[in-house]
């Protein structure tokens, strides 16, 4: 079952938001409106892509993560890190240094997310090859894309690969490792270092899964600063404590980058990154204009997770570093290393494969004007009539992203036509609305401040 309300880690800070239209106009699902001079995110439309955050000129949108101190609520504190974290640092800082800094900060173990690939890749290949699968199979990796498909491309929910992404597999493995040692969940804290808001949403309200074994999430930019400071303070001493961890495979390191899935999964595979590119592609896929493709990897961010909203480094440099790191690592399909550690994920392969499936991904279309089709038709007629009287300039001054969005808000009882500046002007000139009424409407959208005359003004 999926929760009725959707967790979003993206929050607008009302004390900072200046009530402009930047976020509203870039949101790919038209999930933002301006009310009382502040941006408001509509919960069931938002897919957590982070576009609004990237485009905010005053940094009023932030990603809410867990308090770092929360890790100390647990006796065993595992940092679950994506490979893309190591790509954030300059080339002269080693992976071992980064992970030992995490231990200094208070974690008792560091584990890399992409060990999950060692389990997933084979299962994914099998899923794609299965003749019963709806072609093309769409990756379940990027939670923003899974949500985008649910709200905008409901027919394609049937194409989503119903397998856990590496993060969930790795988390399950860690939980099992500790449970097997007799350490139960209340003593074990698994903390994921996230490159984006979408992953947080996926952990706090999972799609196709009942629960997540992850105890908390820490933003990558926050942890980057802490690690960087720690490495600088301690110098590059060789004496730093190096956590003993298994090396990742080259496929693992590359997985979260563009082509990371499409390359190792066999058949005709495509990789598409950046949400607008993905939307264009899904439109065509839905019409069956594109066929004979086995698998598509779709990512919301340009350069995939290297371009996550919480990434610190330039995304192209991060990709270069990760490629360099991968070049020296064994392949997933190579022989199993002779000295496989106690903690190796391959040891719990059978258990993980048995738990790798997720439930169906259900559509939850946000495009409908009404649940009842006859009502929806009425509203559509009404909307089309309204659209004819609106000016089609898509100025955003009504607090909606464009004229059509305002018309749809009006027929759904969420806005009034007088929010349109052009209509108001007509109403004033015909005597239907007075100046005070007009002022009240502007204030309800843009707040009181914007109409006040600044002291310095002489116009």
């Amino acid at each position, binding site marked *: 079952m999926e929760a009725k309300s959707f967790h979003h880690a993206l929050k607008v800070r009302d004390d900072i938001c200046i009530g402009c239209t930047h976020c509203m106009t870039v949101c790919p699902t038209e999930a933002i409106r301006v009310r009382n001079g502040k941006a408001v995110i509509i919960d069931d439309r938002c897919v957590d892509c982070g576009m609004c955050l990237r485009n905010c000129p005053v940094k009023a949108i932030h990603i809410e993560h867990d308090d770092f101190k929360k890790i100390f609520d647990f006796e065993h504190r595992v940092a679950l890190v994506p490979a893309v974290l190591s790509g954030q640092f300059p080339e002269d800082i080693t992976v071992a240094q980064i992970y030992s800094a995490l231990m200094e900060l208070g974690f008792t173990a560091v584990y890399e997310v992409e060990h999950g690939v060692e389990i997933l890749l084979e299962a994914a290949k099998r899923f794609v090859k299965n003749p019963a699968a709806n072609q093309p199979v769409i990756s379940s990796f990027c939670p923003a894309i899974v949500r985008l498909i649910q709200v905008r491309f409901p027919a394609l929910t049937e194409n989503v690969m119903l397998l856990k992404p590496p993060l969930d597999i790795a988390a399950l493995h860690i939980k099992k490792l500790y449970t097997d040692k007799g350490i139960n969940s209340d003593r074990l804290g698994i903390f994921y270092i996230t490159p984006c808001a979408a992953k947080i949403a996926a952990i706090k309200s999972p799609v196709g899964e009942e629960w997540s074994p992850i105890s908390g999430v820490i933003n990558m930019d926050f942890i980057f600063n802490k690690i960087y400071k720690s490495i600088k303070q301690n110098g590059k001493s060789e004496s730093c404590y190096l956590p003993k961890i298994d090396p990742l495979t080259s496929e693992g390191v590359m997985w979260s980058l563009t082509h990371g899935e499409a390359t190792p999964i066999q058949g005709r595979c495509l990789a598409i990154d950046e949400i607008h590119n993905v939307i264009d592609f899904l439109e065509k896929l839905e019409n*069956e204009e594109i066929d004979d493709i086995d698998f598509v990897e779709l990512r919301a961010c340009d350069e995939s997770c290297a371009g996550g909203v919480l990434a610190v480094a330039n995304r192209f440099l991060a990709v270069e570093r990760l490629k360099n790191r991968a070049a020296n690592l064994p392949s997933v399909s190579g022989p199993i290393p002779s000295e496989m550690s106690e903690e190796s994920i391959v040891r719990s392969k059978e258990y993980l494969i048995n738990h790798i499936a997720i439930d169906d991904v259900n559509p939850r279309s946000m495009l409908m*004007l009404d649940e009842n089709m006859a009502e*929806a038709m009425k509203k559509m007629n009404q909307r089309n009539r309204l659209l004819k009287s609106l000016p089609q300039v898509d100025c955003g001054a009504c607090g909606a992203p464009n004229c059509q969005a305002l018309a749809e808000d009006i027929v759904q009882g969420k806005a009034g036509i007088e929010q349109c500046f052009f209509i108001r002007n007509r109403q004033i000139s015909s005597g239907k609305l007075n100046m005070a009424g007009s002022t009240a409407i502007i204030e309800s959208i843009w707040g009181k401040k914007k109409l006040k005359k600044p002291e310095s003004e002489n116009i």
Partner: protein
Amino acid sequence: MVFEFEVQGGDFATAGNASSQIKKILKQLNVDHRDIKRIVVALYEAEVNIVAHAFKGRIIANIDTSEVRIRLVDEGPGIPDIELAMQQGYSTASSEVREMGFGAGMGLPNMKKNTDEMHVTSVVDKGTTVELIVFINQPTT
């Protein structure tokens, strides 16, 4: 509700636009996504046929709560033998059209497969009319 669209023959860059528009309308009307898929797949093939084989055409979509009825009326060479054209793999598409990835001869059979009723009438050297009917909101589907 009635919606109308124009289609230009030979313009492969915009082929599929009418299908996308109708798809958007059906989503807004909360039609079941499986029905939308059938309608759009059939319509897209019919739209591409106007682009690939005719000079120009019009699409008239009639939507009500129990069925979607779409008529595609074109001016073009017409189809001399409709039964033959309906066969899987039959195509008169030029090599140019084939190079663009169209002309596998599966369009008409796919339209048939995805609709509840389909009517094709044609007059050689005048044009073709295709009617696609899909029942929606049926208790069993």
